[in-house]
């Protein structure tokens, strides 16, 4: 479906409001038709002007403002805020190895009037085929309207634009939405920047490590410690709606899964049992939690309604059955078991039936996580060293994505295009969070205030 529409003013359509903190209201504006871009029904962009979208040069100019006024989002006012917004867009793309972005600090600064009417002669000949411009506009109610425009410099045409109204405290989300818009439009992939990560912050010596539950935005900003570190916290998982975090804590001296409510700060045990519980995982619809529980030393996988209720035991073997990750449609669960003698990966139906091993390529294989796209399973492959790998859901076409001494516990970006994991240094045991794309070529360390492990990505925010 293509919509042709002439737009005279940028203000025309960009009036959306973001009321609830959790949801950014978004305005999808109709766009001008373009010869070289074909938008198909499934959202896949087939043709772009560069040979591949990774090669596209993108100039990201400082966002303009209609009036430079004070805002809680930036001590220096809305003009400085506009510059920061564009820097976030630039850093999102650059840090993830996407495109060939050029940032606002080395580019001319467009006027507010030029945001919807680029000065093409300035942008031509800068080896950037694409141009991102935007603006920030203060509203009378204290909120901010942020507009984001993507242009094809060669064609001198607008490709897409969107606007969002955000609370000042959530201003960074508008920039992530803009980065998502640019990334999605040019790559054909689903967005992922406007999302959060739960992980474990580590400090202290190896034999007396303090481990705290912490959360942050996908770019490491808005970092917050949730637990105080007096009891060891491990393996968090965000609920699909971000309202809760299931994680393991030694709060009462024993390893137990707690479900922490982000808004209220209250937490409850995942199940009333004196047995140790660990490895929590949410179902894609958020209605169930999988957990592993050891009874008399034997660990099996259970499922319990997230709202509480009677647990159902899904595995029943003398071996260690642990973990578990749902397929996106909720029909299958991939998990690990050493029932064959060593850690290997198995798939079962969501009710526990039809359990079958899928890994037969040598070494040990653990911590499987089903891609949100459904087509791949990421896992830890142990052959001497610990490496992050992906495979088809039938266990075929295994590929290593990393090669270090100890990489462990992959989880997926919301769009299934990037795998996040943690890396442990030999000797010191220092940990850090890393991300790698599915080619294995673009690997980067995430900035965290202290050591970091057990990362888990949540979905794209509404």
């Amino acid at each position, binding site marked *: 479906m293509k919509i042709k529409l002439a737009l005279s003013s940028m203000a025309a359509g960009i009036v959306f409001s973001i009321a609830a903190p959790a949801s950014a209201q978004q305005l999808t504006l109709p766009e001008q038709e373009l010869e070289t871009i074909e938008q198909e029904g499934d959202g896949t962009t087939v043709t772009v002007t560069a040979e591949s979208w990774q090669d596209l040069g993108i100039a990201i100019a400082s966002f303009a403002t209609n009036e430079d006024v004070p805002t809680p989002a930036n001590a220096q006012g809305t003009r400085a805020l506009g510059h920061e917004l564009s820097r976030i867009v630039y850093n999102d793309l650059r840090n993830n190895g996407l495109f060939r972005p050029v940032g606002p600090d080395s580019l001319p600064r467009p006027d507010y009037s030029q945001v919807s009417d680029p000065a093409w002669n300035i942008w031509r000949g800068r080896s950037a085929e694409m141009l991102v411009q935007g603006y920030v506009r203060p509203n009378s109610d204290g909120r901010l309207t942020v507009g984001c425009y993507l242009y094809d410099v060669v064609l001198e045409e607008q490709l897409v634009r969107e606007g969002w109204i955000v609370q000042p405290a959530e201003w960074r989300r508008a920039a992530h939405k803009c980065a998502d818009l640019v990334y999605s439009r040019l790559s054909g992939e689903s967005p992922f920047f406007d999302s959060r990560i739960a992980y474990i912050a580590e400090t202290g010596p190896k*034999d007396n490590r303090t481990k705290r539950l912490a959360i942050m935005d996908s770019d490491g900003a808005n970092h917050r410690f949730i637990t105080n570190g007096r009891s060891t916290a491990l*393996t968090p998982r965000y609920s699909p709606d971000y309202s809760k975090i299931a994680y393991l804590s030694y709060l009462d001296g*024993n390893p137990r899964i707690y479900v922490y409510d982000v808004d209220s700060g209250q937490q409850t045990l995942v199940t009333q049992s004196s047995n*140790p519980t660990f*490895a929590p995982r949410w179902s894609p619809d958020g209605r169930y939690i999988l957990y*592993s529980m*050891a009874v008399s030393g034997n*660990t099996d996988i259970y499922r319990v309604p997230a709202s509480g209720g009677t647990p159902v035991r899904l595995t029943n073997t003398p071996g260690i059955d642990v973990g578990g990750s749902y397929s996106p449609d909720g029909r299958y669960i991939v998990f690990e078991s050493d029932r064959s003698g060593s*850690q290997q990966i198995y798939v079962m139906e969501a009710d526990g039936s039809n359990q079958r091993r899928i890994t037969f390529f040598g070494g040990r294989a653990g911590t499987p996580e089903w891609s949100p796209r459904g087509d791949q399973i990421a896992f830890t492959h142990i052959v001497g060293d*610990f490496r992050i790998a992906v495979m088809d859901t039938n266990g075929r076409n295994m590929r290593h994505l990393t090669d270090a001494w100890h990489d462990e516990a992959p989880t997926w970006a919301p769009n299934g295009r990037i795998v996040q994991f943690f890396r442990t240094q030999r000797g010191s045991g220092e940990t850090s969070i890393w991300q790698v794309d599915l080619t294995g070529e673009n690997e980067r360390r995430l900035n965290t205030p202290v050591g970091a492990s057990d990362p888990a990505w949540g979905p794209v925010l509404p």
Partner: protein
Amino acid sequence: MPRKVVILAATSVLALAACSKKPPEELPPAPVQTPAPAPTAAPAPAPTPTPTGPVAGSQAHFSQVMAGRDVIFFDTDKFDIDSEDAAALRSQAEYLLQYGRATATIEGHADERGTRDYNLALGERRANAAKNYLVSLGVSENRLRTVSYGEERPAATGSNESAWARNRRAVTVLID
């Protein structure tokens, strides 16, 4: 005497494989029923309780008397009790039977060369293997609790085979 055969095999494998501390042995060894001493009426004096030393039946005392036998070790990904472990557990059981009021936590641990969730399960398995052996020697089950620390509390901090061997362990700790 199948037991002797196993121990012999153990020795030869140990000599061959330097990196593998102990070969696997048969699982729950037939326990030798130790005659239970008089329950708790009159706690007999400890083997050599020095007047200034730790109180008999306390963790400090237990640790002193055990002199290292409060810890047993495992091979990679294994949780079976071998002859060396069995000897240590017999010492623990004797102590626990002598001090009938003492209760203990058995901590199960794993080395860093495993995945976190699996190591938690493995530590639980090891702690339970030790507990089951103590129970088989006559220690009442309700005096023993288990906890797995997975790879979270290493005793040795190196990243080498000897450190990992020291960390694959089950430690019995009296609850004071």
